[in-house]
């Protein structure tokens, strides 16, 4: 297992947001953390990235694994060009770095935009640049925090395809946080549903479906209904017994 999370919990002040979350991610797997906003899914990801150290439980990452992080917003450095932003995480020879960065800009379709500044980019272009910046360091584990949630539907689909294309090429391990059920089902090998107050792992769903997947396929629809039922249970009568049962299965 590349990543192992054991009895993970996190409290903010008085409020226990997450409790007893256990899961692991295998080499080259795409795993989604799904949940409504405020359920603590980003918190898990930030802890995996080492940005948050005040958690309970343990996180084990296979030694030597490089981690790349893509945020919800592009977070490009506004004073640097697209090319300079892309080489930001690289050390050593500038020329070699730029060559490498250009290869990844090509991959995300921004080769022509390397001289532009972030203010000159559209939302989709900026997020592509952010993806190139994360990929150029050749991470073994790529963490994505709702990376496409601020984009329009069409750009979102384009970038989802891009992510899969990259994954086909370099088979990096991916942990993706999202609140979009369709996105989670379309991209992932496994969907982890976080739910409850405090949140626990309500479901660990294996999506045994070959790629490329069809977005409207019947089996994805069935899984979606399944997840929706679980999510809706939270707002109406919250059925703890069901969650406990499903949790045990997982």
């Amino acid at each position, binding site marked *: 297992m590349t990543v192992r999370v054991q009895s993970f919990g996190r409290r903010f002040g008085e409020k226990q947001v997450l409790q007893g979350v256990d899961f692991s991610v295998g080499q080259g797997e795409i795993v989604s953390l799904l949940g409504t906003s405020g359920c603590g899914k980003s918190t898990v990801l930030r802890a995996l*990235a080492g*940005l948050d150290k005040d958690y309970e439980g343990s996180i084990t990452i296979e030694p030597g694994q490089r*981690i790349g*992080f893509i*945020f919800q*917003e592009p*977070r490009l*450095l*506004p*004073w*640097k060009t697209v090319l300079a932003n892309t080489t*930001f*995480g690289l050390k050593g020879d500038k020329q070699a770095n730029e060559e490498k960065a250009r290869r990844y800009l090509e991959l995300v379709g921004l080769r022509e935009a390397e001289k532009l*500044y*972030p*203010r000159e980019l559209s939302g989709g272009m900026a997020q592509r640049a952010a993806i190139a910046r994360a990929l150029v*360091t050749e991470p073994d584990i790529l963490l994505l925090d709702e990376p496409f949630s601020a984009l329009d539907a069409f750009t979102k689909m384009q970038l989802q395809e891009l992510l899969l294309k990259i994954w086909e090429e370099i088979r990096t391990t991916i942990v993706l946080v999202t609140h979009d059920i369709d996105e989670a089902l379309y991209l992932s090998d496994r969907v982890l549903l976080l739910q409850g107050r405090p949140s626990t792992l309500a479901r660990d769903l294996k999506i045994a479906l070959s790629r490329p997947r069809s977005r409207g396929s019947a089996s994805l629809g069935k899984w979606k209904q399944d997840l929706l039922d679980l999510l809706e249970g939270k707002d109406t009568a919250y059925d703890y017994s069901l969650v406990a049962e499903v949790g045990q299965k997982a």
Partner: protein
Amino acid sequence: MWKKLRTHPVLLGSLLPILLVAAWEIMSRAGIIPAYQLPAPSAILSTVLAYVQDGSLQNHILLTIYRLLVGFVIGTVAAILLGTLVGYSELAEKIFDPLMQAFRSIPSLAWVPLFILWMGIGETSKVTLIAVGVFFPVYLNIVDGIRGVDRKLIEVGRMYGLDGVALVRRIILPASLPSFLTGLRSGLGLGWMFVVAAEIMGASQGLGYLLILGQNTYAPDVIIASIFLFALLGKLTDWVLKLIQKRSLHWQDTALAKR
């Protein structure tokens, strides 16, 4: 074409000054305004030309600029060092900032007698006064700028393994550059104010000295000429900084940057 001319900003902006100067000239010549109080613009111009011809005006101007620059550089360097430290380290902030805020509430001109007492009426006290004046706006803007750096960008830096000096150099300083440059410009403005004060308090050369000379020799033309030169030089140096600001902040996504 007429419409274009009518709305051209330079043309429009210089309309009123030209009219005022013309009216002033006419009224002075007609004797409505007494020359011993307000000489005609042409008389002031000829005074300036006389000073230029004997070479003394150039010396006055150069010395004033020299004092300003030395004070400005010293004040700015001190502000950068302390401002970066206080902005970045919470401990340094707790130690230094209360003292700085206390010093800031002293109107800088109140230092004048003390500086003269300590350092005499030489260059040292003048430069010190200017440096003190420049220090505060630059310091405050650096501290504000650094504290205002987007936490999200700092996280990006940390994601790529930066901390300490590397984080300051690669994220915090460039991100706080806009604020720093604003500080430099207001520091320069205050610097001009204090160079006047410093030269009025006792100098044998410099534009501020000309002000006092004009006062003591009943020569309003000399006073007005120096006032005008101060304005011109102040505007010129600010324009240089503005140019630097524009060039180094071209990446900014603000309404002002696009103007």
